[in-house]
């Protein structure tokens, strides 16, 4: 068994037009920069993209957006991106907006083999239109479905050759669930180490969920809003 691939180029083998792909990250935090950058150099198009957000104009998924490689966006929040706005208003892109917790749980459920479940979020709003509603414990809930993808692309801090992953700070976000929900999961990590180097007590994503792993290069790790406390 060898899960280690050389680089992003080798990792994306098999990705073709019209596939459903999950990308980890919250805003620009914890996004798989290497894979996104390499996809932006290909002619792959028609992507159905599942990601909490859609990058910014010239970085992250914003690059695929600019190239018109994304056909449909499934997300909870797509602000901070004027190109997205333009494509949405001109009808060039479809969007499915989903409450963030429901999106997270749909991915978790998809990876865990749960086809559907009930949540209260969105009941009584336009999110509930066309969905089965049911009362549990005196409160109304709506039926939501698990999500999976042809490929899931995640970014971790450390990973080993078995595909075990550890995330740093708030960069776990959607990565941890998405890793479980791809038919093929690609993990790019800042530091790739031999099996046995990571303490098994502190693994976030067990290696079984990961099919391909590589050590990324040249991480920019752009920050959307730098907010600081002025030193005294």
């Amino acid at each position, binding site marked *: 068994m060898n899960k280690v691939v050389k680089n992003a180029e080798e990792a994306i083998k098999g990705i073709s037009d019209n596939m459903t792909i999950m990308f980890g990250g*919250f*805003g*620009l*935090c*914890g996004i798989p920069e290497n894979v996104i950058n390499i996809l932006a150099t290909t002619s792959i198009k028609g992507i159905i993209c599942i990601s*909490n957000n859609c990058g910014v104009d010239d970085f992250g998924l914003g690059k695929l957006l600019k190239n018109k490689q994304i056909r449909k966006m499934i*997300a*909870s*929040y*797509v*602000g901070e991106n004027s190109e997205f*706005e333009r494509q*949405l*208003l001109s009808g060039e892109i479809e969007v499915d*907006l989903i*409450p*963030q*917790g*429901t*999106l*997270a*749980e749909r*991915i*978790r459920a998809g990876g865990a083999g749960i086809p559907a479940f009930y*949540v*209260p*979020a*969105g*009941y*009584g*709003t*336009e*999110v509930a239109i066309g969905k089965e509603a049911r009362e549990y414990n005196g409160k109304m809930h709506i039926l939501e479905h698990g999500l999976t993808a042809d490929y899931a692309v995640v970014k971790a*801090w450390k990973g080993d050759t078995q595909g075990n992953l550890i*995330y*740093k*700070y*708030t*960069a*776990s*976000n*959607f*990565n*941890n*669930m998405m890793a479980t929900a791809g038919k093929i999961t690609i993990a790019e990590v800042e530091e790739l180490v031999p099996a046995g180097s990571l303490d098994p007590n502190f693994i*976030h994503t067990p290696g079984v969920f990961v099919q391909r792993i590589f050590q990324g290069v040249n991480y920019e*790790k*752009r*920050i*959307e*809003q*730098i*907010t*600081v*406390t002025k*030193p005294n």
Partner: protein
Amino acid sequence: MALDKNQIAKRIAQELKDGYYVNLGIGIPTLVANYVPEGIEVTLQSENGLLGIGPFPHPDKVDADLINAGKQTVTYVDGASFFDSATSFGMIRGGHIDLTILGAFEVSEEGDIASWKVPGKLVKGMGGAMDLVAAAKNIIVAMQHTNKGASKILKQCTLPLTGVKCVKKVVTDLAVLDITPQGFKLIERAPGVTVQEIIAATEGKLIVEGDIPEMNI
């Protein structure tokens, strides 16, 4: 005088109780963290996977991997923990978060809230707002009472809803209102603002009983 944003935040901070786990929305709610009363310990939750938000970092400690739900760089306090988004919303949906404070465009007398979409304008998405209002045990809304003279405290919301029958309390620049089965109940008024002014600025059913005290800001 109507309250400014910081004063609204300061008044809401008086609702905090020791030991609370609190989720703060973007805008005025974020400011509440600056006014946690002396002797009270609250733990701030960030929906992107942090329990125990600390202050903004010193410039040399900024880390792209450590942000809040507003995508601002933050720090974490002793005893903090990090987790994924499904766990984060499990905390919220499961009723483990004691209080959610968020902004709104409109609130109705039944406790409905509209906060995410203005038809005709760009729709950016609801983010975590629908999950929060559908599940938190206690929801306080921080908002302006009116917009260009038009009341935002309504019989029925006119904008697309974020959630139904969920808001428990509203703190505006003019008043503190509880949402009761009978409608909005006036609890306090901003210093120098009269009950008549609040009645005039409120479209929804407003219950005024006895003397209404001024807020202690």
